[in-house]
């Protein structure tokens, strides 16, 4: 169907995916290069009875989406580095209080106000470790406009299933570049809604620790009258200082994600069976990597590619398998930062495999030629 094909920006794709995924609440604060997401949703949400609100800052934005999610609405915010820095307080709260939320970070150059209109991948580690306290983050990173749409829906699904904040990491180039996108038909993408309790109110525990670590979630107004706090709490949500309950809570928060890595973690590989060299890159850089790998193969070099789609958490076991491919001698880690994911790769490769960093942080993209040159250096 021709009308289902559109030329759209990555930021538009976030908004499109959000509408498909059932978003009903967006709270945000304008920041380049993410602003289009808010602008589009300000227009579209009220048309379906959803709510858009521009808050006074990013701390308020993340607070508002947590409140709205507790009231039963699928909720999201979108920002860039400086705003994400302000949001980490709320992200930690959403994690502790197990509130499904989606935070989109359209990355730009940093540190500080940095480069508002330029691309970077320098918030990769912030997406993992941004908030204080131990914490297991989920972050997804698309490489194309269509994948931005798909992963927006997936981020919402994961937030609902695992009752946790999920970050979508895109970047200035992905957010603003236009590509042809076939809008998925209704029913084409799986849409998941949080599991609601079916027990009487007197039995309900909002933070119940179940054998599969998943606990149904009532909304405020459903008649369950539960307590929510960022203080470490028991299964009913009341603050606790008992070490047994503290351990149980923090272990649950960890297990509810780490026991489901096979579901959460998507990693794409290509040509790794016989590769001597692998290129590891995510997001926009993975596209250059793909081209470089093809160019290398055309020159009969045995080069493979690894593309994490789920950036966090790391599926250590899977990566270890991938990197123990028998001919592998080196992994090139290409990133638009001064070296962040390279530490993850170093941790996961066998001893004899060399890990080589390819970094760019002058606000320009890494080119296929740059990667190809690096491949040639290794060979």
């Amino acid at each position: 169907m021709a009308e289902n094909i559109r030329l759209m920006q990555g930021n538009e794709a976030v908004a499109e995916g959000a509408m498909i995924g059932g978003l009903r609440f967006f709270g945000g604060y304008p920041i380049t290069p993410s602003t289009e997401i808010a602008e589009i949703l300000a227009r579209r949400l009220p048309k379906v009875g959803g709510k858009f609100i521009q808050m006074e800052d990013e701390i308020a934005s993340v607070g508002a989406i947590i409140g709205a999610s507790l009231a039963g609405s699928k909720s999201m915010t979108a920002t860039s580095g400086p705003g994400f820095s302000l949001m980490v307080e709320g992200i930690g709260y959403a994690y502790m209080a197990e509130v499904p939320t989606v935070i989109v970070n359209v990355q730009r150059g940093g540190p500080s106000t940095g480069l508002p209109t330029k691309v970077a991948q320098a918030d990769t580690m912030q997406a993992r470790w941004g908030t204080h306290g131990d914490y297991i983050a989920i972050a997804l990173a698309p490489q194309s406009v269509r994948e931005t749409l798909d992963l927006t829906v997936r981020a919402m699904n994961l937030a609902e299933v695992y009752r946790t904040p999920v970050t979508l990491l895109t970047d200035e180039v992905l957010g603003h570049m236009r590509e042809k996108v076939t809008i998925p038909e209704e029913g084409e993408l799986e849409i998941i809604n949080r599991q609601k309790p079916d027990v009487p109110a007197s039995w309900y525990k909002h933070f119940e620790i179940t054998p599969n670590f998943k606990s149904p979630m009532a909304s405020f107004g459903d008649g369950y009258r539960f307590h929510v706090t960022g203080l470490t709490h028991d299964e009913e949500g009341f603050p606790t200082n008992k070490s047994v309950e503290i351990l149980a809570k923090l272990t649950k928060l960890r297990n509810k994600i780490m026991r489901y890595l096979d579901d959460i973690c998507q990693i794409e590989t290509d040509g790794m069976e016989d590769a001597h060299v692998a290129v590891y890159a995510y997001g926009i850089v993975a596209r250059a990597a793909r081209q470089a790998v093809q160019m290398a193969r055309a020159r009969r070099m045995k080069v493979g590619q690894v593309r994490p789609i789920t950036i966090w958490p790391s599926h250590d076991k899977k990566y270890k398998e991938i990197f123990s491919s028998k001919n592998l001698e080196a992994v090139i880690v290409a990133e638009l930062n001064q070296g962040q994911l390279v530490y993850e790769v170093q941790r996961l490769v066998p001893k004899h495999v060399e890990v080589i960093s390819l970094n760019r942080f002058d606000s320009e993209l890494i080119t296929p030629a740059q990667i190809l040159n690096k491949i040639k250096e290794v060979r």
Partner: protein
Amino acid sequence: MAQRSDITHKYLRAKKKFPNVWCAGCGIGIVMGSLIRAIDKLELDRDNVTLVSGIGCSSRLPVYLDFNTLHTTHGRALAFATGVKLANPKMHVIVITGDGDALAIGGNHFIHSCRRNMDITCILINNQIYGMTGGQFSPTTPTDSHAATAPYGNKEYPFDIPKLAMGAGASYVARGTVYHVTQLDQLIYDGIQKRGFSLVEAFSNCHTYFGRLNRLGDSVKMLEEMKKNALPLKAAAKMPPDKVQGKLLTGVFCDVEREEYCDRYDALIQSLQGK
């Protein structure tokens, strides 16, 4: 009315959360009583009441009550409350906050909530100090008063809470004290009933820190001082200005009609959906 403990017990999470964290004689418990009586008198469906608070002694209040309760991060109660209310406009959203929580770290959310005029009732318990962290000065600590971080007296000037709320656009602004309980019951009742953003300042005692550091005596002494120093706005209007100077004015500072945010947003939805 103040002694109606049968009403109070109806709303407590009695089996779960007691004893409470507050010092004996703390005024926060009195505010809790007033809130309960106001809600009971309004006959609100308790499933449809959400109490939202930040961090501090004052902000511990919601955990003791059997409603939907949301204890957030320091200063952010109004931001979370904004999300709850807009997502579910039928919910009665009541924010419980302290002077530090609402006016220092949460000052930005406070003024914007007043301006936005969502139907949220904000009960600001003003004890003129940071109780929970041990008596540091707050945005309402009087000039020259002593605090843990103002050992030589406070060099700053305090906020006048009603003026701040009115200037920022709140629809209903009132101040009561924990001594004048009947009045406080009524102000909270009216605040909840008001459609639009209402701010009720509940002037309270922190004898443990503010009282001790300023030699104001125990909680009874501090309550007696409130009795002496409070002056109803109506009475003040008839008095010469020099007699009003230094008094704690109480009553309703403003009560204006402004279309409420969720109503306006709902009208937008209706018009976009062609209803």
